[in-house]
């Protein structure tokens, strides 16, 4: 487990290497809890799961990480800086007139960023197309990860992608849903069920437990698309 650090997220601690860049980005402003909810997922992806480094951001055989919930940039930029994809001093003027780091990421401005996002419901369709393109090129190594939010699932475009990817057994795709119970009308029966009913495999885990996240993010069976639901807060059925 990561050592506890003295920083501000409520209820859990941040991965140590992310603390300094995130503080630099925050620059004294108040961050709401939702900013912190995705930091662990970003960290585990880049620290343990994704086969991509600053040297391989243009390698066609790299894993792809598509941030669909584009507002979750703080943790994303902090992890990209901690892992050397972007210079740490870029964090100092984020959002400024000459900055490459906006409130939503732009793939043409930031090394390692695979898609520009912000408007919800675009990442999973792009991820399906990316997985199809890799498959058409015979690239069986790279995997496509798409991070969404539970409220983002309100957008119908996601359900077009979920149904199609499941029906066609698009094995190279992993969706990650950060579930912080922010969908206005909820997902009775759980987020994962929207995927599994369409033929996906699914794992629902504590969104701040790095070992559990790592296992969930790599839990695909090689034949079907996979979803990892990372719960921010009590995990359903865990008794926590």
């Amino acid at each position, binding site marked *: 487990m990561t050592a506890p650090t003295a920083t501000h997220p409520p209820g859990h601690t941040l991965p140590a290497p992310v603390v300094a860049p995130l503080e630099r980005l925050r620059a004294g402003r108040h961050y709401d809890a939702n900013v912190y909810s995705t930091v662990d997922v970003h960290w585990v992806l880049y620290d343990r799961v994704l086969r991509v480094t600053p040297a391989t951001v243009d390698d066609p055989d790299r894993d792809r990480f598509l941030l669909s919930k584009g507002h979750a940039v703080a943790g994303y930029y902090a992890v990209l800086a901690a892992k050397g994809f972007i210079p740490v001093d870029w964090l100092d003027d984020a959002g400024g007139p000459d900055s490459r780091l906006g409130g939503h990421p732009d793939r043409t401005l930031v090394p390692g960023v695979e898609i520009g996002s912000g408007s919800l419901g675009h990442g999973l369709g792009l991820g399906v197309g990316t997985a*199809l393109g890799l498959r058409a090129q015979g690239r069986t190594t790279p995997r496509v990860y798409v991070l969404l939010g539970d409220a983002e699932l309100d957008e119908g475009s996601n359900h077009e992608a979920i149904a199609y990817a499941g029906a066609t057994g698009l094995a190279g795709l992993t969706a990650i849903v950060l579930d912080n119970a922010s969908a206005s009308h909820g997902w009775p029966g759980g987020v994962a069920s929207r995927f599994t009913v369409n033929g996906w495999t699914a794992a629902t885990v504590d969104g701040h437990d790095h070992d559990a996240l790592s296992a969930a993010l790599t839990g695909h069976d090689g034949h079907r698309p996979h979803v990892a639901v990372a719960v921010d807060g009590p995990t359903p059925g865990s008794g926590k």
Partner: protein
Amino acid sequence: MRDTFVASATGFLADPRTTIVLADISADAFTEAGRRYPDRVVNVGIREQLMIGVAGGLALTGQRPIVHSYAPFLVERAYEQIKLDLDHQGVGAVLVSIGASYDRAEAGRTHLAPADVALIDTLDGWTVHVPGHPDEVPDLLHDAVCGLHSTYLRLSLRGNARAYPKAGGLQVVRDAGAGAALLVAVGPVLDAALAAVAGLPVTVAYTHRPRPFDVTGLRALAGGEVVVVEPYLAGTSTRVVAEALADRPHRLLSLGVGRAELRRYGTAGDHDRWHGLDPAGLRRAVGRFLTRAG
């Protein structure tokens, strides 16, 4: 035109970059191609947002997507995907529609797309092809697929009696001599325009590529009076023509499909008449315009 497109597009599948993306429309026509290239003929079902998103993802991996559906479903239903999943990602695709403004007039409003070119024209850097004859389609598709940028190819059941290949730039098909008014006909409306100006002192130029509009050709041919006849929303090209001629006094008449929803079925020919795009309607409009010049 659709048959020509299907044959040409299937041929492009020999290039491993080519990927055809469908949303059920015309899927039957690509069944054989799909058997041969199962990973590169993708039918996502009736899911137009996904269709464009998939095209964007494919392009991000270096594939060249040809995306095809009925015009309103291709361009209007998933406009934000076109804006964000293609343009904002910095990648391109070839969008090919059928149905045009009112090819299936009897189907009613849901299947009419007179505003498609105007909507695409809100985006930056797109090429728009509007062929007026099936024989113009293969070259246009070839240019589009071999490029890197985004192209909209608008196919129609309507058309002219003969093909004018390589008419990206304005091609003079009727020269009325110096000082004559210039009529620019885009795609399938050429024959009606030619019939409309019979006996009038009007030079007629044809193009099947309204974007980028041939500004140089326009400036070379235009005098003080310009008429633009387009098979989609009237005025779609007014902006580019006005900008091209901003430094000289001129009068401009923009003809095309009207904005109002007619709530009438009938045939495409009926709609031509109701929108004043039949030879008689065009002649009335052009005649009034030229008379006012005196």
